[in-house]
């Protein structure tokens, strides 16, 4: 089986860099797609809606982003999802420990789990291997 494709949707450059490196260390074959905000990701998905080879298996979605944030991404993604050639597992990733954010994420059926930053390599390993 080919290594999973992971979409990192986060405006934080440092998080993007550290996460990608940890993921690659776990599995050098991993295909990592980086998006600076929800809009960029949505555009990419809609352009490749019929192409399972380019669509992610796992989405790591930040809440707080400029322009289209995590919540808005989920709203638009829900409409797009039915036509998507691949159904990814979505993890919300945020530094927020505010129960409002955590509950909101857990109530959303599209979200598999809510992960609090910083994310350790061990946690990433579980995510990737769970897939």
């Amino acid at each position, binding site marked *: 089986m080919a290594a999973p494709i992971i979409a990192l949707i986060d405006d*934080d*450059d*440092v*998080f993007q*860099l*550290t996460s990608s*490196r940890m993921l690659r260390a776990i599995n050098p074959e991993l295909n990592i797609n980086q998006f600076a905000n929800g*809009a960029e990701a949505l555009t990419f998905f809609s352009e490749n809606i019929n192409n399972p080879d380019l669509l992610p298996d796992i989405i790591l979605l930040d*809440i*707080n982003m*400029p*322009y289209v*944030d995590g919540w*808005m991404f989920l709203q638009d993604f829900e409409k797009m999802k039915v036509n998507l050639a691949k159904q990814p597992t979505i993890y919300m990733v*945020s*530094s*927020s*420990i*505010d129960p*409002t*954010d955590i509950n909101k994420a857990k109530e959303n059926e599209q979200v598999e789990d809510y992960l609090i*930053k*910083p*994310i350790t390599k061990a946690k990433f390993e579980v995510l990737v291997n769970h897939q």
Partner: protein
Amino acid sequence: MRQKPRLSLKISRNESSLVESIENSGMGFWQWIVGSDVIEWSDQVYKLYDVKPKEFDCRYESYLKLIHPQDRNKISKTIENAFTKGKNYTIQHRLKLKNGKIKWIEGVGNIIKNTKGKVTKIAGIVRDITSEKKIESDRANWKNRFDLIAKSAGVVLYDYQIKSGKIQWSGESIETLGYTHKEMGNVDAWEKRIHPEDREQAIALLDKAMENVSRYDVSYRFKNKVGKYIHLHDRGFFLAGEDGKAQTMLGMMNDISDRLEAEGKFQKLISELTIGVLVYDANGKVIVTNNKAQEILNYHPFGLVGLALENKLMKEDGTRYQEKDLILQFSTRSKSKKKDIIVGIEHEQQKVKWIILQSQPLTDKQGKVNQLVVTLTDITENKKYQTDLIESEKRFRSLQEASFGGIGMHDKGIIIDCNQGLCEITGYSYNELIGMNGLNLIAEEYRSFVLERIVSGYEKPYDTEGIKKDGTRYFLEIRGKNTPYKGKEIRVTEFRDITERKKSEQKISEQNARLIAIAEDLKLKNDQLEEFTQIVSHNLRSPVGNIITLLEFIENSVTEAEKSEYLNLLKVSAEKIQSTLTELHEVLRIKQNTNIEKTNLSFFETLAATKLLLHTQIVQSNTIIEADFSACETIFYPKVYLDSIMLNLISNAIKYSKKNVPPIIRIKTEKKNGVCIMTCSDNGLGIDLEKNGQKLFKLHKTFHEHPESRGIGLFMIKNQIEAMGGSIKAESKVNNGTTFIVNFNEYNPT
């Protein structure tokens, strides 16, 4: 001219008498002896074939030429068969006569053999069957014509052979039922499509007609092609077979749904009427009635025929009607209408129902009365009400005296009676009040308001202000009601002094307002707290998380290059924390520092300074700024804040302008209820407020893919404005520009 002998046939004597009788019945006889080259014909054959004996050589080939060309082949084959296989035959064929007419002939050929079994000759008979053929074709034509009529009348025809269960359908089955004749199917298919509720009864009726071999006439609901039930009228007759039992069922059906619906509607209309209806026909029989009539008369209306109900009816004065009064009976003698006759009818226990009766005879074209329509309206309750009213008038006096409030009765404003209470409230004496215009008891500015309610007959209580004889005003609750009084429609008005109630009401509403203000303030504070939680959660915790991760990376770095890369990133994260902390500090300062020094500032001058700061952007983008501060030229406000508000609003308007459309910014002030409001509108990209409205003024929120979006400006000025007791809101539509409305003193009116 050679006369051929009548019987030039080589036949025996026995045969000759037979041939004679054949000839006499109009048929022809012929024979062809084996070995001969001619066919022998009797005279009649010549006649039938329309040839003269001297003109015809009687050869087989010549004979074939007389046959209609289309039948020739058939004939020659049949005769050849007869010779070669010894087969007798009967055949029908056409002749084409000299005059061009067609004649139908039936020919019979018999093979005759000798005692040794050898074929010696063929002999046969021919006869003219043209007229029979015509009947046959007429019958086919008749069927076609009948179908045509059936179609134009929308009728479905059928011919049901009872033994086989087969039905031959014709007529308009598609138009009427949606099925083709084939789809209509046999008797089972028909039965299945009858509505289950109607099936049993319809079949029973038909079975009875079948048993009696008689006519039938039934109607039932039938499922059409699209599954909808339509009402079919089905009638016809059974025909007996030789055994005297029904063998064939012939009939037709058509759709009567429309007719039934119309009839049903009429019946329903009548049955739902709240007045009783009776319609008599010329025989005095009730043909239409409804439940109400039955209820009023306490009789089954169909039992009314010939009943002299008149002696059960009484006049309003209690005397009885006579039979000859013909109140409730049909009479051809009386053409006059009866209008508004009040009659009483005794029900059980000597209870009397009072009825208003109207009757209307209907005449036919000859002017003869043929129907009578009677309507009955139950007025028992009304009658009771009238009696009650007389009593209540008596009670009124005593009641109004006992009332705590003031009661006045007025006729179009002029007081005709009042109680002591009204005198006490208004300060006038009874004698002063009688004859006075009641409106004079109302404070002048409320008189038209009160008059409006008198004229419209308003019956609910309402508040107004009264004026006493000594000129003092008081809060007054009025409740008026129109009532019949001594034969007139007058208005009874109750006055209630509600000064005390008003005072406490006012106190409550003041306290309410204060509570609302406190609640608003609390909400604002709560919102701000939530905002801080968000800032700490996202903007501070995020770089801290990065630092933790990076430190781990550094610990595990092998090369110096790696280490230095992570150190650089550490620096970036630390700087981010620092800048957020600075912003937070700034906001906290604003929130705490509500006593910041205020001065009188000119909007115009502030705008001029802002324009100077934004000079480059304004020139580059061709921005046009239209300002109108005439309604409110100055404001007592912290200078730094007003500068910041103006700068942020205008720079935002320029930053988020549409591509290739020069920004037009309209900025103006106005004064509402002593509060200064500034609005700033642009023609830019606009914001989807439904999506982003909640985040508009939050820290680090941006809504456009703009490189310079940092999401700080609106957050900061909102804090500044709110710290000064004001508010800011936005109105916008995507691609339709944005308007920011700054209310400088919303919660702190000066």
